[in-house]
């Protein structure tokens, strides 16, 4: 088949208009110029046609996940909505023990968004995808009228392969299992709060947004009986731990003194009366391993770029099943519950 060589299509306008969502030439130019020339998908049909030998291994499973991203501001220290859209979906696959392969990316763009912003978002996505070793292979674009959106909304779906023999399940966590996080907590939440501007705080904290699939492969190699992993996104570490205690019917005890936190994040929390356990993370997970594999797991994590600051924070226990308890620096105990609604700064 002859493929006519032609010059690459270019968007003419500075800002997105309804025409860019109309299905005509403007939309075609936008898609090619801003998205496909950057993502370089393998084909240009309505669907991506894909194959990977690992899918055919007996006992292998296809992992499939989807997530929507609506963060405001769209660009923040340490990343943008594109970075978290890719990392978020990659990580949802990775924490299940899957090797991520391919992502789709759907955009709902508000009329008036600058094309330059879209270019930066696309570029961020491609960079994050390359870091994770995945490809963005298909997508969609829609434009909505001014006021009907909030900048750009991104939905990414991702598929990956869970190799045979891997079966990570929250329900598998047993009393005595050790809880490990791969790094400091709350950086993303603090960075977003500062970037939003309502609190007029400035700080150097940047989002921890990064892919965790290489880290997961390293831990699984060193600690094959890893029970489960969860990324601590909305609702923070507290929510991730509560999901696990719920599913496993165990209790968890964590030690406040062992929680890794930057002084700046502690500072933001002190000023606003927030609890760092509930701040969102975009590159931080918690995992549970059997006690005899904990040292190996920790060492393996510390050997990866995303896990240098990995540390043990607690243990599963037979006491208080379904409840997460934190030993305060003081020796007292307090329950760490699921977040209710949004965490709001306190005045007193």
């Amino acid at each position, binding site marked *: 088949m002859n493929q006519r060589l032609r010059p690459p299509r270019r968007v003419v306008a500075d800002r997105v208009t309804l025409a860019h969502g109309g299905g005509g030439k403007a939309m075609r130019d936008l898609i090619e110029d801003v998205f496909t020339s950057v993502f370089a998908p393998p084909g240009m049909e309505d669907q991506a046609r894909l194959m990977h030998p690992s899918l055919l291994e007996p006992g292998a499973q296809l992992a499939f996940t989807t997530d929507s991203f609506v963060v405001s501001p769209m660009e923040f220290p340490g990343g943008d909505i594109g970075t978290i859209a890719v990392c978020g979906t990659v990580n949802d696959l990775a924490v299940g023990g899957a090797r991520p392969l391919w992502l789709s990316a759907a955009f709902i763009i508000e009329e008036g968004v600058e094309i330059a912003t879209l270019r930066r978002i696309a570029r961020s996505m491609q960079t994050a995808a390359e870091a994770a070793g995945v490809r963005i292979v298909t997508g969609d674009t829609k434009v909505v009228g001014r006021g009907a959106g909030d900048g750009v909304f991104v939905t990414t779906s991702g598929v990956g392969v869970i190799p045979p023999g891997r079966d990570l399940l929250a329900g598998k966590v047993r009393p005595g299992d050790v809880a490990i996080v791969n790094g400091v907590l709350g950086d993303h939440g603090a960075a977003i709060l500062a970037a939003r501007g309502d609190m007029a705080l400035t700080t150097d904290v940047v989002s921890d947004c990064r892919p965790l699939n290489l880290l997961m492969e390293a831990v699984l190699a060193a600690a094959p009986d890893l029970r489960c992993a969860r990324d601590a996104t909305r609702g923070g570490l507290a929510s991730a731990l509560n999901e696990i205690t719920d599913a496993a019917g165990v209790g968890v005890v964590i030690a406040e003194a062992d929680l890794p936190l930057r002084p700046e994040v502690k500072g933001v929390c002190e000023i606003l009366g927030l609890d760092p356990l509930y701040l969102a993370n975009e590159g931080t997970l918690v995992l549970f391993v059997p006690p005899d594999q904990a040292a190996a797991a920790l060492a393996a994590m510390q050997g990866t770029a995303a896990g240098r600051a990995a540390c043990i924070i607690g243990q599963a226990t037979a006491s208080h099943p379904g409840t997460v308890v934190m030993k305060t620096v003081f*020796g007292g105990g307090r*329950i760490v519950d699921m977040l209710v609604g949004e965490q*709001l700064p306190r005045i007193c």
Partner: protein
Amino acid sequence: MNYADEFRDPVAARGVLAAIARVTDEIGATREKPVHIMEICGGHTHAIFRYGLDKLTPPGLEFIHGPGCPVCVLPMSRIDECVEIAERPGVIMTTFGDAMRVPGHRKSLIQAKADGADIRMVYSPLDALELARRHPDREVVFFGLGFETTTPSTALTILQAAADGQTNFSVFCNHITVPPPIKALLDDPHMILDGFVGPGHVSMVIGVRPYDFIARDYGKPIVVAGFEPLDLLQSVLMVLEQIRDGRAEVENQYSRVVPDDGNPVSIAACAEVYAPRPSFEWRGLGEIDASGLCIRPAYAAWDAEVKFGVGYGKGPRAVAEPDGCRCGDVMTGRIKPHACPQFGTGCTPEMPLGALMVSSEGACAAYFQYGGLRLEEAL
């Protein structure tokens, strides 16, 4: 020294806890006949639960959680009036975070925001004034609430607005003062109180002299306390020592922050801007004389009640609490949060019936969040 970590030193804590146990013993207090100490301030309630101090102190010591949570004591009708102002065209309503979820009769501020009102969270009234500068075509209103810790900031902001001639800015004033509800509690024949842990940050503004009446007229000790766990423990120890020795004095544990005479600039600004309301309604406590502040006529141009024709005394006010709400009993220490029949069932942080569950400083919210009873069952 960063003035925070040192006051959380667990080694020093063991020393203070041991001393507390010893003095509680010397008083002869037991679980069946405990010493009742009220922490007045919501921030202290929160700190007690966050650090599990009530679990570390002996059973002969019982904390009574006082009404010092300004969000908790705000009557529903004031939320209704705030929502009404926020829903007027052109208004930007600004508020502290924790006021947003307090239920009104119709809706809370967060629900009003979902319905389209322009309601924005701010950290400081100065940020609200800045919004007024940036949006000269809009009316910016600041929902001023809080005890004396916060009253000077609102007053200083009004003075700044007046100096700048910023006319599109006003304050919906719901500030209240601490001494009147303490007196109301002390006058209540049902209250058993042996001593008080006094509000550290309120005292930073008003000094310690306003509490003299507690020792002098009611014979109860009060120790003004800081907010780190060691501050609270040391203050409790000081109260217990007074009780053991038969003394009733006003002491200042938080001397590194609280000057005995308070902050002159703050006191002067408040005197300039505010006048006491003859009485103000406190959710759960009813009307208390001379306990609320309103803006003086000289600053009427920055008084949202004048600007928008709402407020205290105007319009019908539904005073009744929702059916089954026992906030008043919890706030005055008559019952513990988990003894309220609604706790955890009809009243949860997701669907709060009363204000003590909404504000993170409310005793019920703290109990729910940090465990209280569930923690006892668990451990």
